[in-house]
């Protein structure tokens, strides 16, 4: 093991910033991070031991105790649940003889849940040793269980288990006109870099991750910083449940995304770029690496790009299962090899980003659009969309519709148009922008896709009238409690309290005061949390409480108060051990019941 670890450390040039990449390799080889490995890494990389442990504990794909040789994770997104995930998971657990969350006694396999893996249009989905599994059903599960029980190496598993489709159903401005390799750079150099930035400014392009900051201004700010070193980062940590468009863009349009990054580097004066790829998209790594190699061979990356004197290269860094790393400052922390805890802002990354240097962080789709604009000019983009939201938006559509997949629309398109296109009938409502976004009811389908109306990073989950909205709220609230980074108390404690309170109401233990208490708690978590995660964690509750107050009221009991757990059941252990079953050894669930006794 010592030799193995020394080898990885050497390949990573003993860089502390590469800690995540190093830990990924150790986890993949040993299925946990052994204590001696931590000691050795601490010496080799000059990182204190507790800091390494804190990183291991932070990311859900790293473990301090051994997982199975086959680490199976099943996606817990609401869309997977809508496709029957729960019964499939039970079937799988039964078939493999391992409980969810556990490692089988022989150490061969472990099974657990994981947050949305970005396969919502082809779920129920999962991961085996980090590689995406799609369209799970009883027959694929039978196959997987058999392969694991025969201990077949992963590269001998049939390809169809790992098949990931693009499912592009509607293409527009961006998806229709893929640029030729090098075209954006050539245009940018020909037009002049300042003029190209003007075109991007003129195009009105705003960040596609959801927040919608104007791209040209971000690049301008970064280029104006008095520093000699700058960085470009592409945020492909697509963790918002229900979003998967970046996976498709990186599978089929990666060249153009890298080109957009290179144009940005030319404009701001960066020599190094990073693609921060979410760990769940491991299956894309080799393909992306070969595209980068090809670009280097073609003189589009490396030294003196296209003979224009630009030096720039891109490195791919994989995440390790942490939703919070989609937040740009947390992503930068993660790139530096640390736990992904959001920084205080300001200073913003354009001033102090990666290693304290000015850094542009943009979404995959933003770089794709920027490359298109560099070729076709600002007008090409600005002529489409609304006054405040120019161009198109690529949506990841999933849930109750005939054709879940990728759809590109001009901003300003109504929700009803989108629903018609993807074949959604009898719709109850749509979750726009993922759990951190907004739930809209079927009274609001004339609303428009736009930053000034319904802003979205691309997640679009459709629910038909057979669905129970509280199941969705329950799923999303648990998601946030799981993904809270733990840094600030309002979010760390608040999201757990929200989870507990929503469980109490959903399980039918709630009374009138409980919904009021829930609302107060929502406001507290929303207003006092450090970053966007906590500030939006209460959205699923708030947006549904506003639209469907009756749904919550209907679950309440007509008594003043009831505990959220089984009071008499809580005495069971003591009853058994004291060998008692008299009246004094029992408790009524509510005060009213106890008076009737």
């Amino acid at each position, binding site marked *: 093991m010592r030799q193995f670890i020394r080898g990885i450390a050497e390949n990573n040039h003993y860089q502390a910033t590469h800690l995540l990449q190093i830990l990924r390799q150790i986890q993949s080889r040993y299925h946990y991070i052994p204590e001696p490995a931590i000691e050795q890494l601490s010496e080799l990389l000059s990182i204190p031991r507790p800091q390494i442990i804190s990183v291991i504990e932070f990311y859900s794909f790293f473990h301090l105790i051994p997982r199975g040789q086959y680490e199976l994770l099943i996606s817990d997104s609401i869309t997977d649940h809508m496709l029957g995930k729960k019964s499939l998971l039970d079937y799988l657990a039964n078939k493999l003889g391992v409980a969810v969350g556990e490692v089988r006694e022989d150490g061969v396999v472990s099974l657990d849940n994981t947050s949305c893996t970005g396969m919502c249009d082809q779920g129920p989905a999962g991961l085996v040793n980090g590689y995406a599994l799609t369209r799970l059903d009883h027959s694929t599960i039978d196959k997987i269980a058999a392969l694991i029980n025969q201990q077949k190496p992963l590269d001998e598993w049939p390809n169809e288990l790992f098949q990931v489709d693009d499912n592009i159903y509607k293409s527009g401005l961006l998806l229709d006109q893929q640029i030729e390799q090098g075209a954006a750079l050539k245009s940018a150099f020909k037009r002049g870099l300042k003029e190209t930035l003007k075109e991007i400014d003129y195009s009105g392009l705003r960040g596609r991750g959801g927040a919608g900051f104007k791209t040209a201004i971000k690049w301008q700010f970064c280029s104006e910083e008095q520093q000699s070193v700058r960085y470009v980062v592409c945020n492909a940590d697509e963790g918002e449940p229900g979003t998967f468009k970046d996976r498709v863009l990186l599978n089929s349009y990666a060249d153009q995304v890298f080109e957009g990054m290179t144009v940005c580097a030319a404009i701001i004066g960066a020599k190094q770029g990073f693609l921060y790829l979410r760990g769940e998209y491991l299956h894309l790594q080799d393909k992306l690496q070969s595209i980068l190699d090809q670009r280097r061979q073609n003189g589009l990356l490396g030294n003196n790009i296209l003979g224009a004197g630009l030096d720039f290269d891109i490195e791919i860094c994989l995440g390790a299962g942490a939703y919070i790393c989609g937040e740009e400052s947390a992503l930068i922390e993660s790139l530096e090899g640390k736990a992904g805890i959001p920084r205080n802002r300001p200073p913003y990354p354009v001033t102090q980003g990666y290693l304290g240097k000015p850094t542009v962080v943009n979404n995959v789709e933003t770089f794709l659009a920027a490359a298109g604009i560099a070729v076709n000019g600002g007008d090409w983009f600005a002529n489409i969309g609304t006054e405040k939201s120019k161009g198109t938006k690529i949506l990841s559509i999933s849930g109750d519709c005939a054709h879940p997949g990728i759809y590109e629309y001009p901003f300003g398109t109504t929700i009803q148009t989108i629903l018609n296109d993807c074949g959604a009938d009898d719709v109850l409502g749509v979750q726009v922008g993922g759990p951190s976004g907004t739930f809209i009811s079927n009274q609001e389908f004339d609303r428009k896709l736009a930053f000034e109306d319904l802003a979205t990073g691309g997640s679009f989950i459709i629910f038909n009238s057979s669905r129970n909205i509280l199941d969705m709220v329950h799923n999303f609230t648990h998601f946030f409690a799981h993904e809270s980074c733990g840094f600030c108390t309002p979010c760390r404690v608040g999201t757990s309290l929200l989870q507990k309170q929503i469980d109490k109401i959903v399980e039918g233990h709630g*009374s009138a*005061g409980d919904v009021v208490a829930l609302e107060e708690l929502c406001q507290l978590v929303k207003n006092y949390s450090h970053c966007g995660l906590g500030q939006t964690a209460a959205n699923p509750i708030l947006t549904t409480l506003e639209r469907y107050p009756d749904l919550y009221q209907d679950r309440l009991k007509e008594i*003043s*108060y009831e*505990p*959220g*757990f089984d*009071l008499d059941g*809580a*005495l*069971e*252990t*003591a*009853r058994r*051990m*004291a*060998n*008692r079953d*008299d009246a*004094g*050894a029992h*408790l009524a669930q509510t*005060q009213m019941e*106890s008076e009737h006794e």
Partner: protein
Amino acid sequence: MANKIRVATTSLAGCFGCHMSFLDIDERMLQLAEVVEFDRSPITDIEHCTNCDIGLIEGGVCNSENVHVLREFRNNCKILVAVGACAINGGLPAMRNHIPLEECLNEAYLDGIGVENPKIPSDIELPLLLDQVHPIHEIVKIDYYLPGCPPSADVFWKFLTDLIEGREPSLPYELVHYD
């Protein structure tokens, strides 16, 4: 006498530290006694609550008796107050929540060092332990919370005088910051 405000207090899974801190209002106790009358409380030794205006609860809920006492208070007090860290969060006694109850009982009564005549106590007079220690708001509705371990005498004084004088109780920052 009839117009005095009636107050009841009790300690559930607590250490009586909050009660001791309450007594630290010192001579102000005389002022309080002019407008307040104590019902069930360790101070009076009255065994059961009758109709009261304010109930002060120290400690969390660790056994069946705590549940009965808490419900008696809720039934009889117009305003019920969680006093101190244990009532609010479970506090120190809740540290056992990370250990299965069976292990706790085995250690205390069967396997522990120096245990003589090992046997799990079983008597209908003895309350049974809940598998977890709970904050009191998880069992009954609570109207106010007084933070602190213990809340200082000034917190008790400010809170009670606010209530008695008909104001919505509010604790200034100086009384609730601890560093």
